[in-house]
C-alpha cells in the first residue's frame, strides 16, 4: 500500500511546521525521510497516521492506499492503524506499555483488529517474536527487563504482527548504539521486504538511511529541499542542507572507524 502526500502543510497555533510537502511511496518501496531535528519529520509521520495533535491544522492531501487520511473520521483511522499501517517509534523503552508483558504487547494489534481465539493470537504473536530474533523466555518478560535493542525488536514485532502493507518507522534506531542500530535496520528491512510492505523510514542519519532505503527525501525547516536515490544523494548532495547531513554522517562514521 503506497503513501501519497500532496501539498501537505501542518501548523500548530499559527506556527507553520511542515510546508507544502509532496511525498510519494510506491507499493513495496522503502523510502527515507531525512532531516535535522525539528525539521518536521515526525509531524509528517503523525500526519500519515492521522495522529496529529488536535490543535494542529493540516492542509493538503495524504492518501494511504485509497484512504484520504486528513479529515477522515477517527473510526476509519483506527481501522487503518495497526492493520494496514504499522508504526515503529523512536524510543523503544517508553513506547512499550510498562504494565503489559512482551507477548501481550505484540498481541495488541491482533486483539484490536482481528477476531482470533486466544490460542491463535498467542501462536501468531509467538511466531512474530521468533521472527524478530527473541526467544520464548522473553515472552513473559516485562518491557523494563529488556535491553534497548530487544525493546525495539518488540516494537518491530508489534508493528508487523498484523502484516501491514505499510510501515512508518519514526527514527527507529536513534535511541540505540551504532551496532544495535545496524542490526535493527537490517531486521526491519528484511521483515518489511519479506512482507512486501512499503516503508517510510524517518531518520536524521544518512548512514542508517543508506542501509534502509533506496530513495529518500530531504526535509529542512518543514520544506522538502531535495530528493532522489539515496546512493546518489550520498555521493553528490544537491543542496547545502543535504551536504551538511551527509557530512555529519561521514564524520560520525569516521570517528567510529578510528576507534
Amino acid at each position, binding site marked *: 500500500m503506497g503513501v501519497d502526500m500532496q501539498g501537505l502543510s501542518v501548523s500548530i497555533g499559527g506556527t507553520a511546521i511542515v510546508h507544502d510537502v509532496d511525498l510519494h511511496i510506491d507499493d513495496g518501496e522503502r523510502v527515507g525521510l531525512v532531516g535535522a531535528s525539528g525539521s518536521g519529520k515526525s509531524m509528517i509521520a503523525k500526519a500519515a497516521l492521522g495522529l496529529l495533535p488536535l490543535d494542529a491544522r493540516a492542509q493538503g492531501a495524504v492518501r494511504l492506499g485509497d484512504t484520504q487520511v486528513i479529515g477522515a473520521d477517527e473510526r476509519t483511522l483506527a481501522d487503518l492503524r495497526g492493520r494496514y499501517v504499522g508504526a515503529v517509534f523512536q524510543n523503544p523503552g517508553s513506547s512499550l506499555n*510498562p504494565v503489559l508483558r512482551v507477548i501481550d504487547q505484540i498481541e495488541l494489534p491482533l486483539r484490536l483488529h482481528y477476531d482470533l481465539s486466544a490460542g491463535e493470537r498467542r501462536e501468531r504473536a509467538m511466531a512474530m517474536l521468533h521472527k524478530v530474533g527473541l526467544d520464548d523466555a522473553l515472552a513473559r518478560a516485562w518491557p523494563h*527487563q529488556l535491553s534497548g*535493542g530487544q525493546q525495539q525488536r518488540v516494537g518491530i514485532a*508489534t508493528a508487523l504482527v498484523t502484516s501491514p502493507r505499510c510501515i512508518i518507522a519514526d527514527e527507529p534506531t536513534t535511541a540505540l548504539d551504532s551496532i544495535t542500530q545496524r542490526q535493527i535496520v537490517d531486521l526491519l528491512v528484511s521483515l518489511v521486504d*519479506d512482507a512486501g510492505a512499503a516503508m517510510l523510514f524517518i531518520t536524521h542519519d544518512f548512514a542508517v538511511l543508506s542501509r534502509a532505503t533506496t530513495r529518500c527525501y530531504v526535509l529542512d525547516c518543514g520544506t522538502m529541499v531535495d530528493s532522489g536515490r539515496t546512493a546518489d544523494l550520498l555521493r553528490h548532495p544537491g543542496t547545502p542542507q543535504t551536504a551538511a547531513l551527509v557530512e555529519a554522517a561521514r564524520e560520525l562514521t569516521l570517528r567510529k572507524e578510528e576507534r
Partner: protein
Amino acid sequence: MANDDIVNGGIADDDRTSRPRTQGLPSDGDSAASRPRWRGLSRSGWGWSHAAQSEPASDNAPIPSGHPRSLRPLRRIAIILRSMWRHGEGRFALIVLACWLIVALVSLVWTPYPLLVTDGYHVWNGPSAQHWLGTDGTGADVLSWLMAGSRTNLLIVIAVVAVTAAFGLLLVAAMVSRRSALASVSVVAVDALISVPTVLIALILAVPLGASIMVVVLACGFGYGLNLARVARPQAMLAARSAYVESARANGAGGWRVLVGHIVPNIMPVLLVQLSLSAGTAVLAESGLTYLGIGVPSGVPSWGHSLATSVKFINVFPLTVLWPGLLVTVVVVALNIFGDVLRDAADPLTNPELRGDHGR
C-alpha cells in the same frame, strides 16, 4: 558484522540463525498452501506471504502451551495475597477484612439473638454470659445488632467504591481528553465541585430520597469520585501523553480502549490507594450521616445506627458506645492499611514475585 555478536548477548547470533527460517521460505506459491487458518486475517483480501512465514516457527518450535500465560488471574491474586500476608500490617488488614466478610455472611443466617427480641428488664447492661457485648436501651443484644450491621456496612462500602471508581474514572477520562475544551472545563468543574462538602451533598440528596442507603452511596460516591479524579489526574495525564499510549493509538486503539487498557492499568497504584481510602471514609460517613438522621433509616441495622442510638447516653453507659466505635475505628484503619499494602503487593515494580522468575 562480526562485531554484531558482542551486543545483546546472543541476540545478534539469533538474528542471523533465525533468518534461514524466516527468509529462506519459498514465497507466494508455496505459502498459499501452507497458509494458516486466520479467520480475521484472510478477511483483508491481501496476499499473506508474511503470515505464511509463521509456519516454520510452529514447525520446529512448538509453543509450550500455557508457558507464556502461566500468570493467570487466580495465581496473580494468590501471589498478591501472599505478599500482603508477609507484612505485619497487611496481615492485620487481611484478618480484619476477612472477619468482616465472614461475620456479614454469618449474620444472614444466624445472630446470637433475633434483632427484634428485646428484654425490657435488662437495658443498658454490660457484657455478660447471655449478652457478650451487653444490651442497648431497648434491651436488644448489641452483638447481634453489630453483626447484622456489618452486612449493611459492607454493602455500602462496596457500592461506594463502585460509584467512586465509575464516576472518578469518567472524570479522569474527561480531564485527560485530547479535546482541550472538554479537558479544561472538566478540570475547572472538578475543582469547583470539590469545595462542596460531602455532608451538604448528602443533605441535599436527603430531600428527595429521605433517609436511605442511597443517600450515603450517592453522596460519598460523588464526593470521593471528585477527589479520586483530582488525585489521579497528574498520573493519568502522564500516561495519556506517553509514548506507549501514542503507540497503542498507532496500533488502532480507540479512546476507551486506551483508557481501559493503557491508562487505568498504569495509574492503578493511585486508584487502589484512593479507593481504599474512600472505602474507609465511607464507613465513617455512614456513621456520621446516620447520626444526622439522613443515612441508614432507623430499624435497619448498621454500625452508624448502633452508634447513633446509644451516643446520647455516653456519659452514663459508655460501653454501649464503645463497641460500635471501636469496630468502626478498627475497620477504617484496616481499610486504609489494606490499600497501602495492596498497592505495594500488586505493583510489578515493587513486588518482584509478580514479574515471574526470569529477568536480568
